């Protein structure tokens, strides 16, 4: 039966060569469009699942792709395992920030935060609850574990604190004069750090919501790079120490004395940095991951596929899938099983 209808279709097509020609052309155009989309894709954010076996990555088209790490890292992985198990459109604008709680994946787009359940994502169905805010563009989110609240830094120059239990906004921290790039939480002293376009790193006390300190990094001669600007795009803290960089050079600060202790001689602006054991890993402009020592010297620069990197994540949730993943201005996400070399790439 089926064969006969196929034959009939073919005969019909043969009778209308123009139609088949048009179909072929549209097919080719679709393929070219898809390829162009992949070419212009940038990965802005990543997050690991609480069990450590999945990676979610958000790109500039508003899509989130979920990759299975256990499949990609298994000894008999194929090329199909390096593709996502699920891709869906989460927001209309780019997904700048992704964050995982114990149960949910939080994604931030233009003015809204969506919470996706990880259980449902691993089963490839979507279950979402959204909360819409007036914040124009959410660049960074982090969880303050002390009081289980979500700290959101956005384009309206303010930091909003939301209680995760009730989904209600508790507080607004005002003080920055330009939009906020990154936020971080200092566990031991219950402080929130934020860095913004105005070049200031502000420290807020999370209990009293007051700005405790304000460091203007570009005013320190050793760090400042006026040719790049004064914006702070990367901020991370280790309770006593803080790394910040962006327009000024990436520098390590001692928070008790609020003084810069080491300046890292990296060309280009760094977009994300992390403390790892006794090293500092930094990514930014340049197709490499920089490994630096706390003293200020650059130990190694490991090459990667994307031309410039936006995000760096270490999987600390799982012991057997302990990998480093970096993503940037490419549709490939590089996975490092050993920090010294790139093992393979996941692609959208």
């Amino acid at each position, binding site marked *: 039966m089926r064969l006969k209808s196929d034959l009939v279709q073919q005969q019909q097509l043969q009778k209308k060569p123009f139609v088949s020609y048009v179909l072929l052309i549209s097919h080719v155009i679709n393929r070219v469009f898809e390829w162009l989309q992949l070419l212009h894709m940038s990965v802005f954010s990543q997050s690991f699942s609480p069990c450590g076996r999945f990676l979610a990555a958000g790109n500039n088209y508003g899509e989130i792709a979920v990759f299975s790490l256990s499949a990609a890292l298994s000894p008999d992985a194929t090329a199909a395992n390096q593709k996502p198990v699920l891709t869906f459109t989460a927001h209309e604008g780019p997904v700048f920030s992704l964050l995982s709680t114990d149960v949910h994946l939080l994604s931030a787009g233009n003015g809204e935060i969506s919470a996706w359940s990880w259980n449902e994502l691993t089963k490839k169905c979507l279950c979402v609850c959204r909360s819409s805010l007036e914040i124009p563009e959410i660049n960074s989110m982090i969880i303050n574990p002390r009081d289980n609240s979500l700290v959101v830094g956005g384009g309206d120059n303010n930091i909003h604190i939301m209680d995760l239990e009730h989904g209600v906004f508790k507080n607004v921290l005002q003080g920055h004069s330009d939009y906020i790039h990154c936020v971080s939480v200092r566990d031991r002293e219950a402080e929130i750090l934020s860095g913004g376009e105005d070049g200031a790193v502000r420290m807020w006390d999370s209990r009293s919501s007051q700005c405790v300190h304000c460091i203007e990094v570009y005013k320190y001669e050793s760090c400042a790079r006026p040719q790049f600007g004064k914006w702070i795009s990367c901020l991370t803290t280790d309770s006593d120490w803080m790394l910040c960089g962006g327009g000024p050079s990436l520098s390590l600060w*001692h928070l008790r*004395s609020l003084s810069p*202790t*080491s300046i890292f001689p990296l060309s280009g602006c760094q977009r994300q940095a992390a403390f790892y*054991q*006794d090293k500092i890993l930094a990514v930014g402009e340049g197709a490499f991951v920089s490994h630096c*020592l*706390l*003293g*200020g010297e650059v130990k190694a620069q490991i090459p990667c596929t994307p031309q410039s990197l936006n995000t760096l994540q270490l999987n600390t949730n799982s012991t057997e899938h302990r990998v480093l993943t970096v993503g940037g201005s490419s549709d490939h996400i590089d996975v490092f099983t050993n920090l010294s070399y790139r093992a393979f790439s996941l692609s959208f």
Partner: protein
Amino acid sequence: MLASCLLAQGFMGSPDVSILSFVRVPDEVIRKRLLIDGDGAGDDRKINVLLKSFTKWCNSPGTPEEGFTQYQRMLGTLAQCEFSMGKTLMVYDMNLREMENYEKIYSNIEQNIMSAHEKIAECKKEIQRAKRIRKNRQEYDALAKVIQQHPDRHETLKQLEALDKELQQLSHIKENVDAKLELRKKQFHVLLSTIQELQQTLENDEKSDDDNNQESPAENGE
């Protein structure tokens, strides 16, 4: 057909080859028999031959010399069979002992593997500790660099002391000058007040003189 093959079997003693040539037997049976017999296909035949020659010798009507030679031949064959049996037994013993040896080596290697695993785990812990120590050392170094930039405490204290002394001296001088100023002020005040009093007294005197002069012409006029 069957009778002739049975006769042939009786004559030859080793059934495999004869069966193969005349009757279709499944391969597995042949394979099994070959495996079991193996090298000893000759032994089996030898025993059968011995048995047959023994029966023939018992029933033979020949001369005693022939009988004796046959008897010697049979003894020889028997000895050969015993020899091969002894060899097989020794080989069996050897195999058993090899197996034991291999078992020992196997368990030894397993133990080594376990201890190597443990050592690896310990070394990993050591590495973590060493990395923490290195991180702490680097932090100290970084802080030390910053601290070095600030001047020494002793010097600063000394400078502070010197400044204090200077301050004291200057305040001392200021007090002296103030006291002198007060004294001069008071002296001037005394001087000025005395002058004023004298002026006043002189004016009073003049006035009283005038009064006296006015009174006396008035007295003279009368």
